[in-house]
């Protein structure tokens, strides 16, 4: 028997106030170890969709399954399994030092102090955050902030890392830092879902691409299949796939 996909979104619909539909009948699935890009122009519903993936928002219709299990039956476990990195890192930070920021999630999970310290140290080593541990997260550069935000999720040992517009507002060095963080994670088997409209920086690394427009999935396939027609959906087609590749 085949293993179920890592994450399955089935016919998800969501409307906000006054029945403004934001997501309409959205279905897709993610496989273990994949690097998927969910692309769409501004206002296409990408962030709202992200908020549903670990149960922060409840859909009006449809369901999400994690390894075949409905996420609403998983309690807090789904928050640990599917880690969300928000677009604005500043809004994700709640602590006054990077070390405490990294420990925030595991502390919420009620892990023993020794285990928290161990996890924080592992992530610190993995992402090269040693020199930043005593700094205030809000005072870091854009790339450093994003790495700390990713670290704050990695300490919870997720199986799927979802990043919302991870390159927004970053200079070349910042983008470089983020990619150099994500590529080794993917090589180690971490599943990634990048939500972005900026394909140039990440398309070269992805193995699957999904186009979301006006709350609907319009195209799904490999980057080679999808990229030639992306401008139809208001997304800039990258000229070359050269970023760190």
């Amino acid at each position: 028997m085949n293993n179920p996909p890592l994450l399955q979104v089935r016919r998800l619909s969501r409307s906000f106030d006054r029945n403004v539909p934001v997501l309409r009948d959205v279905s897709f699935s993610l496989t273990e170890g994949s690097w998927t890009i969910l692309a769409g122009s501004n206002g296409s519903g990408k962030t709202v969709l992200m908020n549903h993936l670990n149960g922060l928002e409840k859909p009006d219709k449809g369901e999400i399954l994690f390894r075949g299990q409905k996420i609403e039956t998983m309690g807090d476990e789904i928050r640990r399994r599917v880690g969300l990195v928000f677009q604005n890192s500043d809004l994700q930070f709640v602590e006054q030092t990077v070390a405490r920021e990294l420990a925030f999630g595991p502390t919420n999970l009620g892990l023993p102090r020794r285990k928290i310290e161990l996890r924080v140290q592992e992530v610190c080593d993995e992402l090269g955050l040693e020199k930043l541990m005593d700094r205030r997260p809000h005072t870091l550069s854009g790339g450093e902030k994003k790495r700390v935000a990713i670290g704050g999720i990695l300490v919870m040992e997720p199986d799927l890392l979802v990043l919302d517009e991870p390159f927004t507002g970053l200079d070349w060095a910042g983008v470089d830092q983020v990619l150099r963080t994500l590529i080794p994670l993917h090589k180690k088997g971490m599943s990634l879902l990048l939500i972005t409209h900026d394909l140039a920086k990440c398309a070269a690394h992805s193995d699957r691409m999904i186009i979301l427009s006006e709350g609907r999935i319009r195209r799904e396939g490999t980057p080679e299949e999808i990229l030639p027609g992306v401008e139809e959906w208001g997304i800039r087609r990258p000229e070359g796939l050269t970023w760190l590749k």
Partner: protein
Amino acid sequence: MAEIAFLHYRPGRTLLHRLPGWGKLLLLLAVTAACSRSALIGLALLTALLTTGSLVLKPALGKMKGALMFALIMAGLLAFSDARQFGFGTPVILRAVRFILIFWTGILFTTAAHPAEIGDAFETLTRWIPHFPARRLNTHITLTLTFLPLIMDESATVDRAARSRCFHRRKNPLVRIRYRVEPLVDGVFRKSDEISRAMAARCY
């Protein structure tokens, strides 16, 4: 995609929407004055009026849980403070009800009046007063009403990011308050710093 939340203006074509800004402001003052002076029957009529207004304007109450909780706590504190001074009775309850009705009026008013419209209306109604800084206050009102909802939105995002890392498992109320208030205050100061710099750069 933005969600409609507390203090957000929502475009519409209701009677209240179509009133000129100064008319809305005068109506707000009149209803607020009525709320603060009315007795039981008056308050019942005002409740009926505000209920009708809510049905027409449909403010996103579901997205205002925090603000509504705040109003209820404030009303409770008001009643508690009055009860200690005068003893518990109808006047104490009426004062708490008045507070809630005034809060409710404010929600409906901001739902139907654009921030710039409110500022302009204030300036229209007060510019005849000699030496009164109507223009400057107009800017302050507009800025406050524009940025308050943005701060509330930011607060919602902070909350969502914290819940994503299982913050809701923390049971200690002091810890919960700390992790809600600290990032919000931090964000407000950073944002106000940015705004004041942007205004200074344009010679405000």
